[in-house]
């Protein structure tokens, strides 16, 4: 079996285990390539039936407009349900306080909105597009990752995960994060997107836009970035390797207009995908710490 067939078969198997084991699952959809790939895999797992779960988007309000347009088109084509949890609602309710200053980001706040959305709808399993090659704490996480009542990951108390038998039994209030593409690398995802001809938001491909340089990274010049007189706005040819919100996702200079160019660019790249994520640069254990507090 070719490696992409193997990865696809494994992911479909995991998605069907979620359907079989849980009462109220959800698929966390960010509009990024990994969650778009998950949606494609869900179509392969459940069509011609309906998805046994809605898509859930945690909206920071700082999205790339291209991502939101793409999301809405996709949902319309699928005919599946979309639930949106707004970080703005958490801020308005006084549950979280918006960061101040130039480097303010809503990235950390979305954990609270995510947990509230899970509680409000009573989701017992949340499918996510995280991969183990992204980051070293993720390399340790199970495919069925049990979170306690507070959404927290405890790396020291993970359930052993043997063969392809996933234990999704939980107490009320707990939930399981499920990662069907754990064993895929960034390059695997791109090769699969090419093979399956999966459509992506335009910002993954090279385009010209206004950018500023912050902490050595190119950021889209958006109002959320609190641009002031010190920032120099340049018009450059860039693309995005990951799509989070505009405050924490950096662009890379790129001439990659076509998926073949992107695959070639990644092959030659000396910087990892998460190297363009400001949220990982906080400390050596930034991802581990965020997961412990309920992050994806």
């Amino acid at each position, binding site marked *: 079996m070719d490696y992409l067939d193997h990865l696809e078969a494994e992911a479909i198997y995991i998605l069907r285990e979620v359907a079989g084991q849980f009462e109220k699952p959800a698929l966390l959809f960010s509009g990024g390539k990994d969650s778009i790939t998950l949606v494609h895999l869900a179509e392969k797992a459940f069509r011609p039936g309906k998805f046994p779960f809605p898509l859930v988007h945690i909206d920071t309000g700082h999205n790339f407009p291209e991502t939101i347009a793409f999301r809405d088109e996709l949902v319309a084509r699928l005919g599946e349900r979309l639930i949106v949890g707004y970080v703005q609602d958490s801020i308005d309710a006084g549950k979280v306080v918006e960061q101040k200053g130039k480097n303010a980001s809503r990235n950390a706040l979305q954990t609270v909105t995510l947990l509230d959305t899970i509680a409000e709808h009573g989701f017992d399993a949340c499918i996510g597009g995280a991969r183990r090659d992204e980051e070293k704490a993720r390399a340790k996480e199970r495919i069925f990752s049990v979170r306690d009542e507070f959404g927290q990951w405890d790396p020291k108390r993970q359930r052993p995960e*043997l063969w392809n038998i996933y234990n999704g039994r939980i107490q009320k209030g707990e939930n399981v994060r499920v990662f069907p593409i754990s064993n895929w690398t960034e390059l695997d995802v791109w090769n699969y997107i090419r093979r399956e001809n999966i459509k992506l938001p335009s910002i993954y491909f090279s385009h010209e836009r206004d950018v500023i340089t912050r902490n050595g990274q190119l950021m889209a010049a958006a109002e959320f970035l609190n641009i002031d007189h010190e920032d120099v706005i340049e018009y450059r040819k860039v693309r995005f390797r990951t799509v989070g919100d505009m405050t924490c996702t950096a662009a890379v200079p790129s001439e990659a207009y076509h998926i073949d160019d992107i695959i070639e660019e990644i092959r030659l790249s000396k910087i990892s995908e998460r190297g363009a994520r400001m949220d990982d640069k906080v400390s050596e254990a930034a991802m581990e710490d965020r997961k412990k507090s309920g992050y994806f």
Partner: protein
Amino acid sequence: MDILKFITAGSVDDGKSTLIGRLLYDTNSVLDDQLEAIQRANRKNNDGTLDLAILTDGLKAEREQGITIDVAYKYFQTEARKFIIADAPGHIQYTRNMVTGASNSDLAIILIDARKGVVEQTRRHSFIVSLLAIPNVLVCVNKMDMVDYDWAVFDKVKEDYERLTESLNIRQVDYIPVSALKGDNIVNPSANMPWYTGKPLLGFLETVTVSKARETAQARFPVQWVIRPQTDELHDYRGYAGRVVGGEFRVGDPVVVLPSGFSSVIERIELAAQTLDVAEDGASVVIHLKDDIDISRGDILVKQNEQPAVSQQFEAEICWMDTRPLDTGQVYLLQHHGKVAKVKIQDVVYRVDMQTLEKSPGGDFGLNDIGKVQFKSADPLAIDSYVANKANGGAILIDARNNLTVAALMITQSE
């Protein structure tokens, strides 16, 4: 291009993390920002070179203690293959984590320190490899630089290891002398050991043929989910979704549904919009049968002429994985594919002393203990022996009081 999944066993002292770090580094799988992070962490070897071990220790607690606690999965790729490494801890205290990593591996790399030779830990790791029926073992005799790259030292280790495997179920063993720290025989052949004429580690991993035992096993198809759109145009659509675990199914095959025993014939096999003639081992597909019979999650389709025993009594080798010891008076839940059944312990056949690997009758099972137990199940199970079909002969035990996975079961016989 295919995938090779392998596990590395050995302690930090054997240079396991350094070996993996070296493989990743020398295949250009470590990127600039990751190297920068290592440099920021300022971990250096005594000779001032970069400490590659830090590439694999993902948790704060591991970095603080300099040990591997849990399995980490690492990925790299060459022109020949995609590789998935289960980097498992070697210490006796983390036996269960090694069992976890071993359950999905096709090959095991066992590291032996050239200065120390075959030690208790080598025996324990090899025993686990044999228990989980990993078909291929590669012994890396590491730290050859510390023994002047001496052929005689390598030969002695090889001889001792051959003796060790006589009593174990390991089919194929290969040996490579390496220095993970210096990079000898990792990616390039070592100039320091001209007496070794085999492939270096990477070349070996790129070309090794792993057992095709799953493909030739009897065909099994556990049903995960029933697809019934119930729309006007697809009113009669009823597809059984699942993954083939061993063997293959073809359109026209007469099949039996277990445990009910109903029989039918495969009418159609689908993968999304594609219609297939064959569903091979590992494929996630949807199967349609000629007859409308009652089938749900937990049932298993098998070929009419390849039926497993369907039984409520069976014996299994187990690895206990919970801090709360096995309670022979307790009812546990057994999960086997989509089936969850209540089980009781009938008898403890033996327990293995993990220091000496001797079996003694009876005994208590605590964390990391391995042995053989007889079970009785509330429901009939269509289960193979683990040796005959790994994918249908393994199960887990769950403690219903806290939902934890407490044991791995490798079925030895059912009656």
